[in-house]
């Protein structure tokens, strides 16, 4: 796969991050839990890193599951 950059999905808490991970993986979207990058937030929690090219697909899945997302940012 050609790397085309990453995005991170920021959610309220680690529990929410776990829900996002489960939903995305169930739909075949590769994701990795990483600490929230310091330049994005001072939070001590985790966020979900995905490939930028999968942002749209991820948004559809999370919207359908009514998961509240704080923001999605490229890194």
């Amino acid at each position, binding site marked *: 796969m050609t790397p085309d950059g990453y995005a991170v999905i920021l959610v309220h808490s680690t529990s929410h991050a776990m829900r996002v991970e489960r939903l995305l993986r169930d739909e075949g979207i590769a994701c990795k839990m990483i600490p929230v990058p310091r330049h994005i937030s001072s939070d*001590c*929690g985790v966020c979900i890193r995905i490939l930028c090219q999968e942002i749209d697909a991820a948004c559809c899945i999370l919207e359908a599951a009514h998961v509240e997302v704080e923001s999605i940012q490229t890194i």
Partner: protein
Amino acid sequence: MIYLDNAATTWPKSPGVGEAMLYFLDHVGANPGRAGHRLAVDAARIVYSAREAVAELFGAPDPLRVVFGANVTEALNLALRGLLCPGDHVITSSMEHNSVMRPLRALERQGVGVTVVGCSSEGFLDPALVEAAIRPDTKMIVLNHASNVVGTILPVAEVGQIARRHGLLLLADVAQTAGAFPIDMQADAIDLLAFTGHKSLYGPMGTGGLVIGERVDPSLLEPLKRGGTGSRSEREEQPDFSPDACESGTPNAVGLAGLEAGIRWVLQRGVEAIRAHEMALAQQLLDGLQAVPNVTVYGGLEASRQTATVSFNIRGMEPSDVGLRLDDEYAILCRVGLHCSPAAHKTLDTFPGGTVRFGLAALNTAEEVRAAIEAVRQLSRQAQ
């Protein structure tokens, strides 16, 4: 040894529970939600999987509305103290455990109106009496799904429909039924479901929680405690979203690993199949004990209307003596006394003496029940 104290805590645990806890301690061990390294993420995954298992078992649509805590008592306190304010009115039954009665009596002193609807002397509740008790200021109905003393099943679904019609919340205490009796929050119209992990979910002690239904805004629930959640760490105010709002402090992740394994075992075996097995054992026990001279069995005496918990007394013998002799002479372990439920015993007319309680669970066998009946028969011969 025959363990018949399952209404207090199931033992032995189902296969896989101990292994899951040992795996967590030996191979995961980190603090869930407090860091982003791989072990912390693994720990968070295990806790989240436990949320999913709870949501699946109770038909809750969103695992994030499963708030974990130490036990059902904590969950009931959270729901009652977190939602009821002075001026509100709450309705309950006369078959409740002190885990409901004591928080309610404390709230009563603070100005919350409390109505206790009487049950029959067998321990059953007429839903019409609940509806008749509703007042303009009623906010909530809190109901034991099944008695911890005699196992009688209370009409949660019917009361749930009454609550919906009147715009009230239904808080169900499913300590005695979770894993042993089919429960569906949607079908049973349960708005708040308080459960414990260490009974028929076969998890360890120190696990339990509150499942928040869709009619309740989690941000309106006043937490019992506040503190670190691993989220919104830049702020000194408590987050208001579920589950973090009411889950401050490091959770019992090793316990939740065991709880998930227990629930998965229940789901794999099937709640209906467990119910059928326990119902057969309960009927065997009810019939057997009733056939013993000098023995009084309490409750509805029909397995189809109760859980596999059976209370009885031997005339001329104190419950405490019966319990001691069953343990010493027959290695049969049970619980005697009031079972933390004075209201229920008053309803059954067994207060203050109490009863002897045999609590059966999925791993008990017909042979154990036969041996327990025989032991009671032998003791009853020596009574009086």
